[in-house]
């Protein structure tokens, strides 16, 4: 049975909102005890943290691993290594593979692949509708039994409101969480940028930022009808926030996430049609970005995700409109999030509340915290190490990161899953 004690650690505890020097004792893969100041004498193996940050490992909702279908873009092995290097100890995988993960059989296949190859915890989501086509709901009950932790059609909006309302009603009866992409699909079809001066100048087909609010408004009305448990995958605009706040105030079972890219980049970063900055929904204005940061700070937005989306060079080396959307982010999630810490906008406990505690809570997991009895899924990192990101050093099979060549600050020193070290920075 493992028995180790982390000493001289800067403990980042999102539950209590504290950031203080202390120690953490791990026995049998779980947190046994913790305290402030100097560690007590034990027979445990001592891991001296040298004053670096020890936080709960990141729980990342919405990671795309390209199995089945496009293993050349990302496999469970490569995604697992990337997650470990990024301090992500639990990945919640997306079903937007090809074919979609919409049957218990496919779900069992990916679960087996994940267990064999990935050093981190992998929990799969399943599609809400068959083939993510928005016509018929999947076998939500069987999929839950097979281990699905949530149901989502990812960036496909279930446009048929009747189909969506039935799926929500049925999901509620099973106690299943539905994750949706709030967007008015008629307005967003065929677009590649957010409406505004920049999109007009670049001549890109654009969608109004209001389309997100319209999608969210519809979904909120359906939650009032059905009482389902709902999580919005990415809230990225200021205009959607009042609706979210009202829905929460009215007691609906609703939470919301945002992506690290929408928190740290804006539409102008696309510059001369740089397709690594093409994500879905498209990057927003600086005003929107600031509003979303504030919503994470206040807790209105619950979670931050990498929205890790591997794309090969061929899918990105195309004219902007034709290029595929998405960016890899498992390894850049923490350093990018630390930009908000270094800019003084979010403190570390707040960041880990959104990256670890809240996602774990939403999925009913016991991880994401530093309390006694929680699994010892931990990340040890130095928030101050400066570096310039070279995308070819990433462990993902695809290297489509918008942060290539950018100055970042903060690196993972080591990552632990159930008390076992799965990554140490060379």
């Amino acid at each position, binding site marked *: 049975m493992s028995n180790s004690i982390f000493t001289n650690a800067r403990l980042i505890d999102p539950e209590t909102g504290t950031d203080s020097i202390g120690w953490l004792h791990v026995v049998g893969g779980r947190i046994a005890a913790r305290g402030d100041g100097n560690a007590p004498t034990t027979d445990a193996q001592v891991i001296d943290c040298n004053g670096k940050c020890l936080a709960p490992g990141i729980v990342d909702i919405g990671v795309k691993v390209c199995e089945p279908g496009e293993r050349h873009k990302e496999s469970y092995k490569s995604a697992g290594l990337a997650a470990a290097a990024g301090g992500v100890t639990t990945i919640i995988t997306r079903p937007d593979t090809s074919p979609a993960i919409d049957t218990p059989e496919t779900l069992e296949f990916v679960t087996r692949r994940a267990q064999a190859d990935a050093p981190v915890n992998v929990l799969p989501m399943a599609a809400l509708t068959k083939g993510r086509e928005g016509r018929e709901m999947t076998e939500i009950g069987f999929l839950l039994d097979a281990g699905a932790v949530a149901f989502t059609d990812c960036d496909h909006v279930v446009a048929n409101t009747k189909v969506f309302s039935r799926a929500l009603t049925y999901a509620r009866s099973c106690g299943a969480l539905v994750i949706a992409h709030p967007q008015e699909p008629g307005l967003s079809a065929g677009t590649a940028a957010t409406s505004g001066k920049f999109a007009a100048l*670049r*001549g890109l087909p654009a969608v109004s930022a209001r389309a997100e609010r319209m999608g969210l408004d519809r979904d909120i009305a359906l939650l009032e009808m059905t009482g389902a448990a709902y999580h919005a995958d990415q809230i990225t605009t200021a205009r959607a926030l009042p609706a979210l706040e009202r829905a929460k105030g009215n007691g609906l079972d609703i939470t919301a996430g945002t992506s690290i890219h929408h928190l740290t980049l804006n539409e102008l970063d696309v510059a001369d049609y740089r397709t690594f900055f093409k994500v879905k929904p498209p990057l927003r204005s600086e005003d929107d970005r600031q509003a979303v940061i504030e919503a994470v700070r206040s807790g209105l937005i619950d979670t931050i995700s990498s929205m890790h989306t591997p794309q090969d060079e061929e899918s990105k080396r195309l004219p902007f409109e034709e290029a595929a959307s998405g960016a890899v982010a498992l390894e850049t999630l923490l350093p990018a999030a630390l930009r908000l810490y270094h800019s003084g906008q979010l403190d570390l406990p707040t960041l880990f509340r959104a990256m670890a505690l809240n996602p774990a809570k939403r999925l009913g997991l016991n991880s994401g915290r530093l309390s006694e009895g929680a699994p010892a899924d931990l990340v040890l990192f130095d928030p101050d190490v400066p570096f310039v990101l070279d995308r070819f050093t990433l462990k993902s099979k695809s290297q489509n990161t918008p942060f290539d060549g950018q100055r970042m600050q903060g690196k993972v020193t080591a990552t632990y899953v159930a008390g076992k070290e799965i990554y140490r920075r060379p």
Partner: protein
Amino acid sequence: MRFAHRHLLGIEHLSQSDITAILDLAEKYVDLNRQSAKHSDVLAGLTQINMFFENSTRTQASFEIAGKRLGADVMNMAMQASSIKKGETLIDTAMTLNAMHPDLLVVRHPHSGAVDLLAQKVNCAVLNAGDGRHEHPTQALLDALTIRRAKGRLHRLNIAICGDVAHSRVARSNLILLGKMENRIRLIGPPTLVPSQFSEFGAEIYDDMNEGLKDVDVVMMLRLQKERMDGGFIPSEREYYHRYGLDAAKLALAKPDAIVMHPGPMNRGVEIDGVLADDINRSVIQEQVEMGVAVRMAAMELLARNLGEAA
């Protein structure tokens, strides 16, 4: 004067003096083109490839004539018909052509930014002959030359751009160029085709054409593309013509010496009255075509001067 650009990708990258340099040189070529012996040798020995990924008769012919008059070896490639059908990517096509050592590449593509992407991958000078809804720089330059010749100046003019601004690269390039040259620009059209964000470019937006045309010096009409009809941007051609088609009555609201422009090809009776389009006292549409060849000769000469220098 040195033209400090390797490519001509858009008006956005040009300064006032760049624009003036192109127009001044183009004036020389207007004179040359009116002589019976129209040949020059400034591009002799150079290879010009016209790559059109989108149908074009006028622009392609204009670039071809411009290149030939300057002595370049000109080749036309109709890209819809060739490798694209075989699944080759834009970059592969560019790399293939690049290996044949062209000196000037003239590119039109249906997607915004495609010409920028291609320019990053080749060693030669690239001229944007229109990319998606983004830019069409030689069209804006030929319009500028036409205006300058008709009005005697290219600043402090009231210029109306009318019609489908949203989907028009001609409108964007003109808006940028005429703004850089310090003119007042009005955009006129139904709000479905003239989105409000264009006001951020410093233009005034009018959805009432009668109001918008008051006291303008230049009326620039845009082509209404048929596919916009199917997209539900306007209810019908006849209603569009009634509200936004240029006819003598509406033109009477502009200054008495206002000129009428159109980038072609025209839809007579949809955006412009046929008789008005042919009125040589008001319409400079034919002159625009003539200026097109001269401007393209000037642009290619300026870019060719920089060839061979370290990029």
